[in-house]
């Protein structure tokens, strides 16, 4: 008797729980909404609904769509249980759509949600997720322009001491003492390359000093156009110093255009003439270490400078002083005092300050669990 009662109780419990589970499975997806996807070109609608409880027995969802006045159609594949959003990117602009989310159980039974309010895709003119990017762009642009105009209006802009540049006088002095020449290599870049332009500015300055001391300044060129520009520049420097007589055009000459052949040619010059100082300033490729090695072996003071990042390690270990990347531009800006360059240099420094600020602030906020900065910088598709 007791056994039978036990059985009945067990059966009842089972029935009730299966019933509950089944009825839960049959409850339709709730809170279904369909809205225009924000920040797109109006080609999609986003449908959202609440997730069903884990034990509801739902095996997936199927989205159904009705074009105003028409019948229901299934769109897309069946979505796995646990999905709560779907982006319908197959709509046509101008049409009005309504959606139903159909829950499908393991036993293939289905139950439909209410139909959503009709919606349509609309174009957005401005991507709201990119506001921080837009603001940052405007701020930085303003910083650059402001500083350039500031520099143009004649305001003095400070540029820090650059050790490699200070060594220039030491190198020229030593060459003069020893009665040897100075070799200035402009690298392989063309006349419009920023590193070549910076290098030519520095050369102009070096030429002023050598004009005073009457130290021969030898410049082998790889590009005939660079050669003619450099001739004019050096001549002007000598004129400025009142020593046009000391200028010798033949010291600035075209060597060859082949990369390694050029390196071999300069090597030959170094070994024959044993210059007391070697300048390697400009754009360099793989030949940089051939030049630096030979300069080192003849015991010359070597001052290098390049924005060719890949050659920097070799120049740093083989030369006495090296201008690293942006330092080369800063050096030429320092020497030329060109307002546009001075202003941008300062504007870029403002940009760096902004980065420092967001780093420090971001780190402190994150440590206290606030993620404002990372949210601002977040990737928006």
């Amino acid at each position, binding site marked *: 008797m007791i056994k039978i009662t036990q059985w009945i109780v067990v059966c009842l419990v089972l029935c009730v729980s299966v019933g509950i589970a089944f009825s839960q499975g049959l409850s339709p997806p709730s809170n279904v909404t369909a809205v225009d996807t924000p920040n797109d070109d109006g080609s999609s609608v986003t449908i959202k609904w609440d997730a069903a409880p884990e034990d509801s027995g739902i095996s997936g969802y199927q989205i159904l769509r009705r074009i105003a006045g028409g019948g229901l159609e299934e769109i897309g594949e069946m979505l796995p249980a646990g999905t709560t959003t779907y982006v319908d990117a197959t709509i046509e602009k101008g049409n009005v759509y309504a959606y139903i989310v159909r829950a499908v159980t393991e036993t293939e039974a289905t139950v439909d949600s209410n139909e959503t309010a009709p919606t349509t895709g609309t174009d957005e003119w401005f991507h709201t997720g990119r506001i921080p990017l837009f603001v940052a762009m405007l701020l930085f642009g303003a910083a650059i322009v402001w500083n350039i105009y500031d520099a143009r209006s004649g305001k003095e802009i400070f540029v820090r001491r650059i050790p490699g540049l200070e060594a220039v006088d030491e190198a020229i002095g030593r060459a003069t003492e020893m009665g040897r020449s100075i070799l200035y290599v402009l690298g392989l870049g063309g006349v419009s390359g920023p590193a070549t332009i910076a290098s030519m500015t520095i050369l102009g300055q070096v030429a002023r000093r050598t004009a005073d001391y009457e130290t021969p300044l030898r410049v082998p060129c790889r590009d005939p156009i660079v050669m003619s520009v450099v001739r004019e520049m050096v001549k002007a420097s000598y004129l400025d110093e009142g020593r046009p007589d000391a200028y010798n055009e033949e010291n600035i000459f075209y060597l060859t255009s082949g990369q390694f052949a050029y390196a071999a040619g300069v090597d030959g010059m170094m070994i024959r003439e044993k210059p007391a100082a070697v300048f390697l300033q400009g754009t360099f490729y793989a030949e940089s270490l051939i030049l630096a090695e030979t300069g080192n072996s003849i015991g010359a003071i070597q001052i290098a400078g390049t924005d060719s*990042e*890949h050659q920097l390690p070799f120049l740093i270990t083989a030369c006495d002083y090296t201008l690293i990347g942006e330092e080369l531009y800063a050096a030429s800006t320092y020497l030329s005092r060109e307002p546009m360059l001075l202003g941008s240099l300062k504007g870029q420094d403002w940009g760096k300050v902004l980065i420092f600020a967001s780093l420090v602030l971001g780190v402190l906020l994150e440590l206290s669990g606030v993620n404002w900065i990372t949210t601002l910088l977040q*990737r928006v*598709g």
Partner: protein
Amino acid sequence: MLEKLMDIDRRIIFILVVLAVIIPTLLPINLPISVSAPTRQLHDYINALPAGSTIMLAFDYGPASLAELNPMAKALLKQCFDKDVRVIGITLAPEGTAMGSTLIQEIADETGAIDGEDYVFLGYRPGEELVILGMGSDIASVFETDYNGKPLADIPMMTNVTNYDQISLLIDLASGSSTEIWITYANVRYNLQIAAGVTGVIISQMYPYLQTGQLIGLISGIAGAAEYETLLDAPAKGILWINIESFVHLLIAGLVVIGNIAFFVQRRKEE
């Protein structure tokens, strides 16, 4: 004595280098290879792709880098074809065209992959970032046909691929700045997943992008190729060459040490 030692003809050093390459080439050895995390990440990512997915392989290098990048390109292609992952080959460098088409062909012949179904080689278009951005809206707007002149519409594996949305991964094989261009114009703007296989010269500068997830994996030069071959258990040139490389690195490290000892002794004497 020391000065004489420092003054030896560099051609003697050249001969030492040649010997350090030739001797192990003739007497090959096999040392154990440990696999680095960035290489493993890429390998696991491709392994986890479902069969039938499509990846893009960009051959952005010329013959000057074939020694470093061909071995990894071969290993990657083998893995994809074995896993039934489809490959779209393209290049942003003109020299990459002949190299890429030959290489894909070679591995396809080995593994039995079929042109148009398992892989397609689109070739080259000038314009770098313009090409990258153009493919983001519509691949066919940049490449109307594949390298052999067949319209994309007639290629079975391209019927469901219109832009980056259908590409699971882009692997850039790079010897220059192309990886940065891919990251700048395709990763953030189109959310394309990017990995890279690069030459020794640019390995170090890839690391900031690995940490942010802008690169999901990295194969580093010939060492990376050897690691990849180890992961696939398919030894080829990568493993062979990294073993030879060992001896040349030892030689160069030794030369740096000797040179610096001489330098310090000399400096002390002068003082």
